[in-house]
């Protein structure tokens, strides 16, 4: 890393005090497919559109929602390949924590470490910031939690959040619909309705992905059949 001609940081401050590359990264996120997360009283749900570039793509081979630990899952908006790198690093960090302390990593710790990685790439030579924002959903001793991590490395805990295209409409919709005492099933319905708002075309179990974690503290991605059941309930 040290000897290269290009070993200067691409994220240098602009005169107005902004880091332009990070702003551009956020734009990249903003043009990605919509994803959202809702924290219920007894669990968390994360969901995303799964629009494939062509009908010839085998949709069973694509999985946008990934599991990081048995009780933490993640979804992204933005560049898929960047998210894969982050998922890989996060999984490794969670596993290293577990090996050292012999306890499952708390959600806040994993978010903090992932955010630290993303920040690293805004202050190192010859690299660019990640073009993804992540929504991390987990359930540990502190209860259900939902965090959003941005390309800058900043993270926030949310009761409900959305990212990607159509984010302002989605957030307005969520603001209206969110209640503190929502149950997990209600949250899933609300998530589906929010996705439906900005959806182009017919929504089905094949073109959205939903991941849930309940009080059993096991994160899982719903099968297309289960999503179709929820869709029928919503209608």
């Amino acid at each position, binding site marked *: 890393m040290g000897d290269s001609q290009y070993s200067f940081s691409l994220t240098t401050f602009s005169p107005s005090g902004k880091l332009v590359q990070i702003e551009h990264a956020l734009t990249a996120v903003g043009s990605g497919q919509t994803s959202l997360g809702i924290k219920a009283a007894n669990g968390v749900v994360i969901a995303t559109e799964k629009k494939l570039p062509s009908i010839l793509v085998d949709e069973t081979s694509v999985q946008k929602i990934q599991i*990081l630990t048995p009780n933490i899952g993640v979804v992204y908006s933005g560049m898929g390949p960047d998210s894969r790198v982050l998922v890989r690093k996060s*999984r490794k960090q969670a*596993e*290293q924590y577990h*090996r050292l302390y012999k306890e499952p990593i708390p959600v806040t710790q994993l978010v903090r470490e992932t955010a630290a990685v993303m920040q690293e790439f805004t*202050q190192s030579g010859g690299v660019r910031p990640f073009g993804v924002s992540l929504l991390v959903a987990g359930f540990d001793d502190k209860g259900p939690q939902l965090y959003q991590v941005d390309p800058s490395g900043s993270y926030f805990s949310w009761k409900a959040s959305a990212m990607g295209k159509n984010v302002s409409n989605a957030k307005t919709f969520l603001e209206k619909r969110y209640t503190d005492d929502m149950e997990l099933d209600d949250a899933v319905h609300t998530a589906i309705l929010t996705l439906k708002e900005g959806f182009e075309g017919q929504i089905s179990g094949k073109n959205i992905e939903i991941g849930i974690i309940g009080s059993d503290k096991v994160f899982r991605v719903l099968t297309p059949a289960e999503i179709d059941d929820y869709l029928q309930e919503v209608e």
Partner: protein
Amino acid sequence: MSREAMEMPPKGGFSFDLCKRNDMLVKKGLKEPSFLKTGTTIVGLIFKDGVILGADTRATEGPIVADKNCEKIHYMAPNIYCCGAGTAADTEAVTDMVSSQLKLHRYHTGRESRVVTALSLLKSHLFSYQGYVSAALVLGGVDVTGPHLHTIYPHGSTDTLPFATMGSGSLAAMAVFESKYREGLTRDEGVKLVSEAICSGIFNDLGSGSNVDICVITKGAKEYLRNHMLPNPRTYISEKGYSFSKKTEVLRTKITPLREMVEVIEGGDAMEE
């Protein structure tokens, strides 16, 4: 975390830096610290529906029994378990490390771990340490390709067998296996044979003792039978009980408190901050 980008790739293998110093210290008369070994009898066999692993539970430190009921059957993956003989720290650390690597591999591939994967990870690690990681392992599990049983030696060589024994009690256990093992055993027959082999090690080898642990792994299920047999219970407890001879007479009692107990009344004239 930004040091990651600057760090050299790990050199791996054993670092011999301190060996000269240690030699010098021994020459000057320093006694090298002994380490906790598991004398051990560990066994494994393949039966009709899968694999059965067995182990004793004695951990020794020279001539002393350090742990009367330690766990020698280590978890590697939901469908793979590993018995460890040799230096207790080495077996625990190496199985822990490979179990961790297998877990990450499962997340990345989305598939159940295979026994040969665990085998390859273990043997390459042990080989790179040239036998200094003193771990002799019996690795068994059931995966999509069927049931597998392997032995791994501290230097990194492996064997694939239908029945296997390791540890100081391995000869006693192997004698039982060689005479009574046959293919296609049922679960109960297999558990009985493994228990017999471990008991043979427990009673005939000084390095093995206490209880029998068993782990039965079949396709899609596993049973960890901790302390399946307890052939060495504490049997002698004196019926008469224990009495102690007459104590010295109490002539005088005086209690002096170390600190005076003062009652504090809350509220009232509280000081302003």
